[in-house]
């Protein structure tokens, strides 16, 4: 009783007297030509319960490559599982050798047992990770403070050239972007305010709204968001790549503390630049409001400027500058900490950059909320 199931490349021939299933391979068995699914073969194996052996017939096979071998490997494993003998004699000589090589048992393969992901152990290890990470961050902060005191005592090895270069990169080079964003934010504030104020003919208060909002908080926040995306990310990527290339190790073994040499100038540069960029952003925002106020709402330019001057008190500026210094510290710390702790792979650098920006922006918003609340309580 011979039963053949036609298939494009694979046919089966069951010999019940020998309890043998013969596989016939036909035509092209290369990866590029497409391969049949193993399912068909498995169905055949299941169909005959008393099967003892499988054999191969490859007379019809015109071409093969590693795709053929991978099919055979799966088949052999399936047969081992079902305790069916495999006779490789009918295979092309090269294929038989390659199959043997692929199936040989590897020595010394010791994989770590995968830990079960149960809920409570998972929560526990997450908490431990957080504690660990907080500990590392405090260490990092402590080292940074120590290197800063060293700098004040004039014993630091920090290079002022590096500092100035970072000042230029994080400060001066950010001017264009800060101008664009701040002018637009000033315009948006003016528009949103105008719609409401027009209802009772108080358009002239646009100047107050834009001026106070920009100087007190928005200028600092917008500059900080730009800096987090621009400079925070670049700190993390720079230091991360240095970690990957063993450059940081090379500093350490030279007796140079990377915190003092690499992190300190970055933090100082950003903390110095943030207030300056913030003041600049404030002015640009007021300019944006001015453009909308005079250009579209028809306010008198001189009156607009006078109102701004009257509305924006000096304490608003101080509040804005406190914001900016806090933001500068947050962004620089987030960027440098993530960069220094970066794991040694390309993916590690990506993660470090991402988490520098995410940590930076999240912390900026949280810090804004806290400062606003404190100012409210103090009545500033």
């Amino acid at each position, binding site marked *: 009783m011979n039963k053949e199931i036609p298939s494009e490349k694979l046919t089966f021939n069951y010999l019940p007297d020998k309890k043998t299933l013969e596989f016939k391979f036909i035509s092209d068995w290369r990866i590029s030509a497409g391969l049949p699914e193993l399912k068909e073969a498995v169905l055949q194996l299941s169909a005959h319960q008393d099967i003892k052996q499988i054999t191969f017939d490859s007379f019809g096979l015109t071409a093969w490559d590693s795709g053929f071998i991978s099919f055979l490997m799966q088949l052999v494993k399936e047969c081992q599982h079902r305790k069916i003998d495999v006779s490789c004699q009918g295979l092309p000589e090269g294929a038989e050798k390659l199959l043997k090589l692929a199936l040989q048992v590897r020595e*010394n393969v010791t994989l770590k047992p995968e830990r079960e992901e149960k809920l409570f152990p998972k929560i526990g290890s997450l908490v431990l990770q957080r504690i660990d990470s907080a500990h590392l961050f405090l260490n990092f902060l402590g080292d940074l403070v120590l290197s800063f005191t060293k700098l004040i005592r004039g014993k630091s*090895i920090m290079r002022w050239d590096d500092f100035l270069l970072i000042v230029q990169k994080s400060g001066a080079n950010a001017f264009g972007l800060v101008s664009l964003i701040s002018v637009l934010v000033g315009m948006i504030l003016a528009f949103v305010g105008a719609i409401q104020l027009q209802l009772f003919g108080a358009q002239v208060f646009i100047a107050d709204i834009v001026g106070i909002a920009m100087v007190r908080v928005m200028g600092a926040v917008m500059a900080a968001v730009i800096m987090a995306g621009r400079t925070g990310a670049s700190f993390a990527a720079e230091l991360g*790549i*240095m970690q990957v*290339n*063993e*450059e940081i*190790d*090379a*500093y*350490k*073994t*030279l*007796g*140079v503390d990377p915190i003092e040499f690499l992190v300190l100038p970055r933090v100082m540069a950003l903390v110095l630049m943030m207030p300056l960029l913030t003041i600049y952003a404030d002015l640009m925002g007021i300019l944006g409001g001015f453009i909308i106020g005079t250009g579209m709402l028809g306010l008198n330019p001189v009156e607009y400027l006078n109102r701004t001057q009257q509305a924006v008190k000096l304490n608003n500026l101080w509040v804005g500058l406190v914001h900016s210094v806090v933001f500068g510290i947050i962004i620089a710390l987030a960027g440098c900490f993530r960069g220094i702790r970066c794991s040694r792979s390309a993916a590690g650098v990506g993660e470090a950059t991402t988490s520098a920006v995410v940590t930076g922006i999240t912390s900026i918003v949280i810090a804004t909320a806290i400062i606003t609340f404190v100012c409210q309580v103090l009545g500033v």
Partner: protein
Amino acid sequence: MEKNSQPVIEVRGLDVGYDDDIVMQGLNFKVNKGDIFIVMGMSGCGKSTLLKAMIGLQQPFKGQVLYDGKDFWLDAEQQSIMQRFGVLYQSGALWSSLTLAENVALSLQLYTKLSREQIREVVALKLSLVGLEGYEDLYPFEISGGMRKRAGLARAIALDPDIIFFDEPSAGLDPVNAKMLDDLILQLRDVLGATIVVVTHELASIFAIGNNSIFLDADTKTMIASGSPKDLLADSKDPRVIQFLTRGNKPGA
């Protein structure tokens, strides 16, 4: 204590590893002045981890690393001990934002009182020692891998260190450049009188330059042989050592 009798580096009962995993344990060996000391073993057996514990990058779990009798990991002057050694990293690890000259000059600027002019001359000398004169103003990404390694060596010897560590010096180099680096290592030992520790699995280098060595084994997590590589090849009875030193020919097979 006599200076000659004391080893430059002594490792006592050292256990090293990462996080909670011990990679190597119970290491004991001495490196004498002028030695070219080879740390060998299969890939991934823990050679580099041991090196990190010796140069201060990874705190060991247990045991001591002594430099001229001073316990490195307990010494308050750890940084000053570190200034005594030069390290050539596997990738060269040149500071990518600095030119070759600046790479070599940095330690001179930090730790010596030489004038700018003097530093420039010392840098030119060190670069010419490794065959890179005229490349002062290039950045690391502008030169080939072999040159990067040599520049890394020029940086490692900037302060004329007593001890130079090499992490896989011939990795990624062609045979000619690898041989050139081996010759440089020998010359440095003779000219600077430096003590040299080389982590490698490159057989040609091991026999060409090593006069003392230890063999690390990943399965037993410790050192299973020590001595001059040539003696080990001639006398060792351990099949793992023989297999390694003869490129996988199993003894008696």
